[in-house]
Every structure is written in C-alpha cells, then in structure tokens.
C-alpha cells in the first residue's frame, strides 16, 4: 500500500501546479527517505548520473534542434505553397495539403506542438479565407499536429526506447506503417467529406494551381525536394542501420543549417534562438526523465515490485486483457499528463509483466505511441486544442474545435484497432529493415 500511495501523492502535487519533473523528484524524495534512509541522496544522484550518461538520449537535443531551425526558417511556408499548388484543386484540397505538409514537417522534428503552431499560423488564415468549415479547420490542424508523435523521428519513441531498452531504430521502423496509414486516412476523410459537402472545403482559386508546369516543377524542386531528401536520408540512415539515431540526427541538424543557408536565412540570431529553444526543451524533457527514473526506482524498491506481481497472480489476466488494460491506463493518464511522464511512470510497471506474458515489445510500444497520440487529440483536455487556441482566430470557438477533432479521434482509434488486430503492421518493417527476427 505504501508504494501504491505514491501515485495519488504524485497527482496531488502535479495538479497543484508544481512542475511535473519537480513533482516526481519531490515524491521520490519524500518516499525515498523511508525506503533508502540516509543513502537516499546517493541513490537519487546515481539516477541522475544514469540519465546524464546515456548516449541514446543525446538524440533528443539534436532532433529538437533540427525542428527549432526549420520552425524559424521559411521552409514551412515554401512547403505549404508547393503542396497547395499540387493538391489545392481537389475538394478540401487546402486541408489535404495541410495534412501532407504536417507529415513532412513532423518527419523532420520531434517537437510536439511545434508542427501544429507553425502549420496552424499559415494554414488557418488560408482556410478561413476560402470559407472552410471551422470544425474541419480545427480538426485538420490538430490531427496534423498530432502526427509529430507517430511519424519518426519522434522524441516519444526515443524516450520510450531508452526507458524500455529497445532499439530506437526498430521502434522507428515499427511506427512507419501505422503513421503512414494515419496520414492516408486523414486525407481520405477530408477528401470524402469535401466531396459530399462541397461547402465545407471549397477548392483553392484557379491562380494558385493553374500555373505553367516549369514554374511548378521549379517550386517543387526548391521547396518540397530538399526537405524530403533531408528527412528520408535521416530516417533512411537510422532504418537501414547505417547510422545510430544520434549520428543521423546530427546529419539532419547540419542539413537544416545548410538548407537555411541556401534559402539565405541563416543568421547568428536564428542559430542562437534555435540553440536556446533546444536547450530549454531538452532541459524540460530530460528533467522529467530524471524525475521519472527516480520515481520508479523508489516505487519498485519500496514494494511496488511485489505489488505488481501480486496483482497479476491475483487477477490472473490473459495477455490480451493485460494489453487492453494497460493501454486504457495510458490513455487515461495521457488525458491529463504530458506524454514523457506517462511513459516514465507506466513502463517500469508494465514492461516486466508484458515480458512475462510474452507480449511483443515492439508491437506494444507502437500501440502505446498511437494511444498517446490519441490522448493528445481527445477533448476536453487535449494539448492539441490548447496549442490550436494559441494560433486560432476568435471566430473559431472551443465548440468548433471539440466537434472538429472528433472524426479524427475516431480515425486514430481505427488505426489503433488495425494495429491490435494485425500486429504485423507494427512488427513487419522492423524485421525486414534491421534484419532482426
């Protein structure tokens, strides 16, 4: 009972508005005094050194840096212009272009929220001008923003891999099919909806897409191609096992610097801002990792271990029921907490049980990532909606947003079901790409 009471105590601090990472450290300290007594200081310091000495986690600042650079360059505008040019004439074309752009952008950054804010600032005014349905606008932006979780490189996956001691490359490979499926479903939904209800998503005016082919190709070459090459080479290097995620991330970071230089936007102040943003985001994320690691070691040593194994024998859950229960817990927690904390407090408890039950680790990881993404999008406490609120005009109300994201939440649940029913969607690519059995 002692160990179990750590959770309500943690939630109390978190909901009092104490920074999440600090709450984790506070509870580890308070409970750790009973468990470790006078050696607690050394134990907590060891956890900190453990995280500080993890080479896998150094991919985090590198991917964040890549995103921070792209966010400040004009790459997003260029992408938007170019995707509009190709997809704009379709019903709902602007929204489809937005999803496509989110997918490319998400593949170049691990920062959750960044994709949504950057894309939202450009795409919302454009869609408003064409008279798009406000719910469709909100849903598109939120759903597109949520792709940052499921399209590699995702910081969620890097943290997950390092906590669960899984290959990050394998995990990246695992989320490709579900992530791609999600993009396709989003686009298909928008297309069908705009065909059935043309007033929801009218096509863009002629002059946007009716331009000479050479101009079109040139814009594609300068806007879409460099970003796509950058993204595919970074991911390709990781997926084929040529480079470690950290090395590939460094190449991507250098690539973005070169790209901004080619666009003549590279300046000391841009670089400085990107470095500062990278540092603060890394500090925020890594401190949660540190706090979460302290929390779970105090929990496990303080009786959590026996608590968990006792619960399993007592309830005698089948592996299927166990997976369902765990995903539900992740969803509930993801509803109110940030995802780093969810991963860090859930995994140490779930993983030993899942291993004992013989559940495929990659498959489960992919499911968790999809669930976290769904929680990110699900009202009322959806981070996606909070980010949207920061860039949306006043005419778009919370009502529009809640209604707007609902169909996309359903689509994500469909992807979740598909991955549950057909585990190969998550496990096939890791086997062929990285040659594991």
């Amino acid at each position, binding site marked *: 009972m002692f160990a179990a009471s750590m959770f309500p105590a943690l939630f109390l*601090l978190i909901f009092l508005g*104490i920074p*999440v990472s*600090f709450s984790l450290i506070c509870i580890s300290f308070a409970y750790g005094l009973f468990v470790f007594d006078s050696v607690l200081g050394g134990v907590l310091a060891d956890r900190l050194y453990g995280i*500080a000495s993890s080479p896998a986690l150094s991919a985090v600042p590198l991917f964040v840096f890549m995103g921070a650079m792209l966010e400040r360059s004009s790459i997003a505008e260029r992408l938007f212009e170019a995707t509009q040019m190709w997809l704009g004439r379709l019903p709902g074309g602007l929204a489809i272009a937005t999803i496509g752009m989110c997918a490319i952008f998400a593949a170049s950054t691990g920062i959750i929220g960044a994709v949504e804010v950057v894309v939202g600032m450009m795409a919302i005014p454009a869609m408003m001008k064409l008279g798009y349905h406000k719910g469709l606008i909100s849903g598109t932006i939120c759903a597109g923003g949520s792709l940052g979780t499921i399209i590699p490189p995702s910081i969620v996956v890097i943290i997950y891999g390092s906590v669960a001691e899984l290959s990050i490359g394998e995990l990246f490979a695992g989320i490709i099919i579900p992530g791609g499926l999600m993009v396709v479903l989003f686009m298909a939904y928008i297309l069908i909806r705009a065909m059935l209800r043309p007033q929801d998503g009218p096509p863009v005016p002629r002059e946007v897409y009716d331009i000479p082919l050479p101009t079109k190709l040139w814009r594609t070459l300068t806007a879409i191609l460099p970003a796509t090459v950058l993204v595919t080479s970074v991911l390709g290097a990781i997926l084929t096992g040529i480079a470690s995620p950290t090395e590939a991330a460094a190449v991507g970071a250098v690539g973005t610097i070169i790209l901004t230089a080619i666009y003549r936007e590279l300046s000391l102040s841009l670089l400085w801002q990107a470095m500062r943003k990278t*540092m603060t985001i*890394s500090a*925020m994320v890594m401190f949660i990792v540190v706090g979460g690691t302290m929390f779970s070691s105090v929990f496990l040593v303080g009786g959590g271990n026996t608590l968990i194994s006792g619960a399993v024998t007592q309830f005698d859950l089948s592996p299927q029921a166990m997976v369902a229960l765990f995903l539900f817990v992740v969803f509930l927690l993801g509803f109110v907490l940030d995802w780093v904390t969810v991963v860090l407090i859930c995994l140490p408890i779930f993983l030993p049980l899942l291993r004992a039950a013989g559940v495929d680790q990659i498959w489960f990881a992919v499911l968790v990532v999809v669930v976290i993404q769904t929680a990110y999008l699900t009202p009322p406490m959806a981070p996606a909606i909070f980010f949207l609120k920061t860039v949306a005009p006043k005419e778009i109300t919370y009502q529009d947003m809640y209604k707007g994201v609902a169909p996309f939440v359903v689509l994500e649940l469909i992807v979740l079901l598909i991955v549950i029913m057909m585990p190969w969607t998550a496990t096939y690519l890791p086997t062929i790409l990285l040659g594991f059995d």
Partner: protein
Amino acid sequence: MQGLLHLVDRLSELVSRIGMVLVLGLVVAMFYEVVARYLFNAPTRWSYDISYMFNAGIFLLGSAYTLSINQHIRIDFLSQKLPLRAQHFANLAVLGCLFLPAMVWITYRATRSAWNAFMSGKVEVVSPWAPVIWPFESAIALGLICLCLQVCAQLVRHLLGVMDPASVPGPSDQPNAMSGR
C-alpha cells in the same frame, strides 16, 4: 532583494549560455564523427563519450534558466482555478519543504563527487578514450548549484506572491518565454 533575485536570474542565464554552445558543439562533434567514420573510415575514440557528456551539459546547465522562464512543464488546468495566493503558497510549500532539500542533497553528492574526481584525476574506465571525468562532473555540479539557487529565488518570489499576488508573476505566467533574445 530584487537586486539579488535579478543576480540569480542573470547567473542562470549566463550558465545556460554554456549549455547553448554545447548544443552546437554536439551537432558539430557528432557530424564530425559521421564524416570521419563513413567517409574516411577513421572513427574517433571520443564521440561516444562526448555525445552523453554534451547532452548532460545541455540539460543540466540549462535547467536553472528553464525554471527562470517557467518552461518546466506544469499541468495547471486545475490549479489555475485556485486563487493566486493559494497557488503561490502551494509552490512555496512544496518546493521549499521537498524539492529544495532533495536538490541540495543531490547537489552535495554531485559536488563532492566532482571534487574527488578532480583531486584524484579519475578517468572514465569503460571508455577507450579514457577521458578525465572531472570536467563532466563539474558541469553537472555547476548546473545543479545554479538550479538550487534559482529554486531559492523562486521561493522568494512565491513568498512575495503569498503576501501580495500582484507584485510577482503568477505560477502559470511565462515571462519572456521563448522570446529567445
């Protein structure tokens, strides 16, 4: 008092600049390793150690500054409904009674460890590069010391907030967040 608080903020900001430079350092070092290994087939001996050392430097040296601009994520949809004074009190009590003692203890251990590493010239034994370990441990200690000082500064601010909520920014405000000078 305000002068002292300002001084701590300034220190956090200055130390964070080392962390910022390490961001670029990490990019360059890892890129160099990739070029050296894949193009010239001459992998470095130091890249493995540099990768985690720089990462640790980035997040630890940046932690105090991140706190000073209130970027350590808070889940505040419930606490925002409390009166400002109560919010400040909650932060004051929790950070003062639990977080500061925990961090001071950890910082003490880290500082002692860094000092011992410096005095003995200890090297990293598992690495082929075998670097001396004190610069790494000193960076951790420096980051933690600054974080402790910044926590103290925040405690003073929360105390001022309990007395007069209008005098300081609320716990959910983000002064100059992400403006990134």
